């Protein structure tokens, strides 16, 4: 028992991920946390999407189940679980049964390497980004087999469209990613390798997700601003390709409801359909995490090198870790997680006071007040210094990903759907040549920067 406790405690204070430290207990805890957080995020996203989309179209959206429809996702989940699960008579039963699981597994497995912080990832792989792209490309298999196994026309057309689209945009996506990976080693004074497996003999780039963010930290620039405008163009390409890759509007041809009823999952119902739903949303979060990690500095807060004047407040600031920055700006930004939760709680209380005063709404009003109290309590806990210093990176990462999730909803509310030939034209005739040019230009810019650094360094000595 004592040994077990010692094993559990041995990881605390480590500066590596649980997978990197080889600690099975904490790796399991992290896996459960990520899985739970992801499920909550998908539920929240479901509600937010319906509400935001409704408000964009001057509607109210779900209003009946719970205050402002807050319990609607839970009601939906119960409905889906209780619904009859139909397998069509002419379907290929085994494949029909397996397909949703392939999609879900592919969507969830990638989160093994998503870096929520320098130590807050399940593990750090040497091939991090390659692993993410590879495993997320497996979801094509699930979609193709789902469409084929349904043995029906609409799903098959949807599946073929979907896979053609995903295969096409994977090329553009890969080129944009390679350009960002090249930036980890090019045109920087920093030597050495970041992330899993440190060698300090030579300058080399990295594929590790944590390493990519550390490279941005060491170079003092988010890759979206590096080699301006190359980083920005690569980021834009990725932002387009990732929408197509997740089959979302305006690239949602595989499930174009006006043409194909529901595309590849037309024949699915109940629990199996909800698996597709879950996979779609977690895939959206996964590709957004890739974009945040590669171009937007991952867990780094805005302006990570600006600290402001050093201040000290007894028992509160500076943090216990002596290497942590102590500036005033650091202090203000470290309070952001707590403040944001307090604001959410305050919003709940504002709406409590606006709830109808009719006795029938009493339970809902009390529930909303309780929810607001829980959110405010979480906000207060996030102000406690040891907690505050550990969640900062997770907060900034999640905040950036949330921004992307809002963009997804915004796109859906704004853009009309592409035609299939237009879709292919954008993918192959615009994004692919741009990507190739970008790759070459990034290499040239990087070589120029490297040569001038070496030359100036030689003059300095």
């Amino acid at each position, binding site marked *: 028992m004592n*040994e*077990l406790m*010692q*094993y559990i405690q*041995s*990881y605390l204070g*480590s500066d590596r991920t649980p997978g*990197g*430290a*080889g*600690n*099975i207990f904490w790796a399991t805890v992290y896996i459960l946390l990520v899985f739970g957080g992801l499920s909550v995020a998908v539920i929240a996203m479901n509600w937010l999407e319906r509400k935001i989309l409704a408000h964009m179209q001057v509607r109210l959206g779900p209003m009946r189940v719970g205050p402002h429809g807050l319990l609607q996702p839970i009601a939906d989940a119960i409905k889906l679980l209780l619904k009859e699960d139909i397998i069509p008579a002419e379907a*290929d039963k*085994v*494949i029909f049964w*397996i397909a949703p699981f392939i999609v879900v597994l592919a969507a969830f497995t990638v989160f093994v390497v998503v870096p929520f912080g320098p130590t807050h990832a399940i593990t750090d*792989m*040497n*091939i991090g980004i*390659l*692993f993410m*792209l*590879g*495993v997320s*490309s*497996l979801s*094509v*298999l699930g979609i*193709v*087999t789902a469409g*084929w196994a349904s043995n029906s026309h609409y799903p*098959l057309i949807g599946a*073929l469209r979907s*896979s053609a689209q995903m*295969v096409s945009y994977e090329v553009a996506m890969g080129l944009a990613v390679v350009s960002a990976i090249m930036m980890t080693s090019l045109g920087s004074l920093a030597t050495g*390798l970041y*992330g*899993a*497996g*440190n*060698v300090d003999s030579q300058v*080399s780039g*990295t*594929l590790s997700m944590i390493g990519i963010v550390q490279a941005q930290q060491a170079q003092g620039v988010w890759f979206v601003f590096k080699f301006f405008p190359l980083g920005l163009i690569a980021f834009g390409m990725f932002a387009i390709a990732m929408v197509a890759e997740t089959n979302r509007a305006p690239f949602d041809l595989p499930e174009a409801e006006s043409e194909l009823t529901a595309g590849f999952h037309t024949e699915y119902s109940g629990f199996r359909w909800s698996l597709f739903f879950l996979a779609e949303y977690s895939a959206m979060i996964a590709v957004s995490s890739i974009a945040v990690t590669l171009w937007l500095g991952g867990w780094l807060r805005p302006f990570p090198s600006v600290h402001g004047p050093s201040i000290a407040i007894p028992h509160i600031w500076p943090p216990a870790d002596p290497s942590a920055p102590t500036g005033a700006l650091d202090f203000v930004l470290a309070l952001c997680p707590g403040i944001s939760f307090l604001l959410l709680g305050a919003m709940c209380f504002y709406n409590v006071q606006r709830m109808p005063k009719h006795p029938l709404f009493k339970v809902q009003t009390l529930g909303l007040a309780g929810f607001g109290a829980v959110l405010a309590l979480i906000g207060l806990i996030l102000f406690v210094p040891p907690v505050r210093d550990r969640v900062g990176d997770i907060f900034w990462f999640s905040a950036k990903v949330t921004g992307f999730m809002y963009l997804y909803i915004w796109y859906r509310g704004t853009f009309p759907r592409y035609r299939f030939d237009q879709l292919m034209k954008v993918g192959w005739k615009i994004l692919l040549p741009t990507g190739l040019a970008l790759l070459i230009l990034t290499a040239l810019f990087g070589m120029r920067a490297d040569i001038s650094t070496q030359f100036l360094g030689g003059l300095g000595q």
Partner: protein
Amino acid sequence: MNPMAANPPITNPPVATPFFFYLLAATMIIGGILVITRKNAIHSAMALITALLAQAGLYLMLYAPFVAGVQIILYAGGIMVLFLFVIMLINLERNMKERQFNKQWLVGIVAAAALGGLFITVYTTSTRGKELFPEGRVAYADGQNTQAIASLLFDRGAGQYMFAFEIASLLLLVAIIGAVVMAKKRI
């Protein structure tokens, strides 16, 4: 019971290695058998994907994460999707009725016996074949696999495979152009 203290900071002790090896190997063998015994071509393709993924797992166990990643991205992801496309476009009903195996039992038995004999001969040597297959592995830390491959390919001093690599990619380019030329009537 404290792996952190007992080990140097970079390399980790492998966890439950025999278990994962036998699991992956069994998955591969079952997948491989299913590939040739299923009548439905789609089922065969799915079994093949399972086998390929298990193989990627074996590469990971051999401390070759880059090869494992490429295995997933190219074989399981890319090539198998094309396979599935082709299979879906052919006539499955007619395929199901076709004879699945040819009648070359004699050749098959001879080949299998030869391979089995080879395995047995190696295993019954005095050292259980250990002079042929040394234990241990190339001394790359598992973290540096990608960088090691890159320096084998491109490094000025150690990069001995650059020429072969470039020639191979040129061959692929020729194949792609050839496919386009043959498929398109008017370019």
